[in-house]
């Protein structure tokens, strides 16, 4: 009886040890991969046409979903914000409420989530399929480093695209709020823009928002290229990797957003 329990305990301990070493090994591999990709940065910039192509695929082709989402988020924010503000007689503050919400939080976060779903998943699927169809191996055998030729341009293309997309998201959101607040509800346009100008600080609000979007761009792009490169070279493997990119990127964005907000706006608390 005792020996059976001891054997069970040893077995459980072994499994735990095995899983721990697997996780540590995976983390080591991911870290080495990240360092290798960053080391290939000169390749992405010395042949900038490759990175430009990726900015087009990650950024320009994501414009429709980003712009439409930004517009509607701004319009909904204006409707919801007006409903609350007018109870306290502060409807003129609608502009600053919408602008701060978008520039500080919603712009980087929602644009990041949309970017992960649209561009991150596409990057993972493309690299994963290149691996499954041996295109990466072919490149390697032609003495061309896939990290420099395929991965680094996509990584940097994502990082450059992300803050631009977040800025456009916020801009369209403010425009949507203007349409609803000023044109539809009838708030004074001067109060709408004037309060916004007075209430939004360039360094404190806009720069911090841009920093957030850059951090999200790094996280999403790195996860996307890593999952694609690490995908099992099968249809199921690529599909699993694509799903993981979206899930991990979304969780990373939300987690990083909290951490960054704590550091950036700690004077508020």
């Amino acid at each position, binding site marked *: 009886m005792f020996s059976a329990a001891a054997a069970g305990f040893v077995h459980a301990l072994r499994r735990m040890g095995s899983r721990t070493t697997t996780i540590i090994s995976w983390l080591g591999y991911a870290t080495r991969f990240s360092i290798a990709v960053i080391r290939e940065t000169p390749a992405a910039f010395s042949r900038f046409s490759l990175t430009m192509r990726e900015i087009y695929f990650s950024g320009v082709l994501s414009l429709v979903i980003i712009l439409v989402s930004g517009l509607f988020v701004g319009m909904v924010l204006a409707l919801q914000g007006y409903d609350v503000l007018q109870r306290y007689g502060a409807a003129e503050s609608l502009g600053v409420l919408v602008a701060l919400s978008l520039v500080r939080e919603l712009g980087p976060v929602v644009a990041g989530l949309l970017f992960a779903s649209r561009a991150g998943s596409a990057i993972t699927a493309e690299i994963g*399929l*290149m691996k499954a*169809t*041996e*295109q990466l*191996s*072919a*490149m*390697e*055998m*032609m*003495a*061309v*480093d896939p990290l420099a*030729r395929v991965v680094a341009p996509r990584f940097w293309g994502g990082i450059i695209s992300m803050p631009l997309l977040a800025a456009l998201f916020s801009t369209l959101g403010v425009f949507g709020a203007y349409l609803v607040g000023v044109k539809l509800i009838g708030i004074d346009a001067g109060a709408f823009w004037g309060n916004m100008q007075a209430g939004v600080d360039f360094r404190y609000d806009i720069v911090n928002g841009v920093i957030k979007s850059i951090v999200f761009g790094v996280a999403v792009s790195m996860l996307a290229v890593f999952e694609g490169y690490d995908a099992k070279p099968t249809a199921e493997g690529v599909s699993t990797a694509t799903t993981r990119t979206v899930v991990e990127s979304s969780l990373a964005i939300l987690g990083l957003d909290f951490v960054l907000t704590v550091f950036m706006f700690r004077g508020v608390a």
Partner: protein
Amino acid sequence: MGYNAGPLKIDPMSASIAPASAPPKAQSDFAVELADVTFAYDRRPVLTGISMQIPRGGVVGIMGGSGCGKTTILRLIGGQLKPNSGRVLVAGESVPDLDREGLHLMRRRLGMLFQFGALFTDMSVYENIAFALREHTDLPEELIRDLVLMKLHAVGLRGASRLMPSELSGGMARRVALARAIALDPMLVLYDEPFAGLDPISLGVVGQLIRRLSDALGITSLVVTHDIYESLKIVDYLYFVSEGRIIAQGTPAEVRASGDGFVRQFVDGAPDGPVPFHYPAAPYRSELLARV
């Protein structure tokens, strides 16, 4: 050639049977040498004591069933894998000992044709062939264009230069991949299952192209395949691999005349023999009668 393993010990070039103790040729005669190579994925052994010597300019085939370790041999030669023990030499250089730069230099003298072509799907046929030329040379675009058209002409697809890989048939894709493999005029081309999934006409075309291009350009060719009939037509010498070991080797004539059970099963396409039809399992009767 092949002095270390297998029941048939034959010189691939002269088609004469070489005794096991025959003196080895000078190192420079061989494009590729594997000596007592052992390789395992994690703890699962894939190759055990593989030794082979591929002479310069020869067309040598490696045959064996699926999963016997044939492609692993190519990956060891290409430096994508490192052996657990033994030596892998390409043109006299030890591949596992090469650093990153050395490996790149070695691979520039090497071409590889993958099982399904592995063409870059976002590039046209022309761009696929020009890829290596643009990556590794500073040639003007006019010269690259001429070289690409020459390579495509050699495989009969000059007229398909503007097509995308998705517009090609399986045989055409394999021929484009062959043109890409020889783009930098390599001294060695590795072929991984070049005949897989091809119709009989395409299969014959690809087989003859491998032979003709090797002869015309003086390329050493190493063909991994399980198509016995096509490979017997084009190779100078054949190695048979089973369960990670070389179990037979010889010229096409020797292979045809061989009485070896494994070779005969391969040549005759017999479903059962040294390579069993049934995967190892418990006795049929006892399994059927066992309670679920």
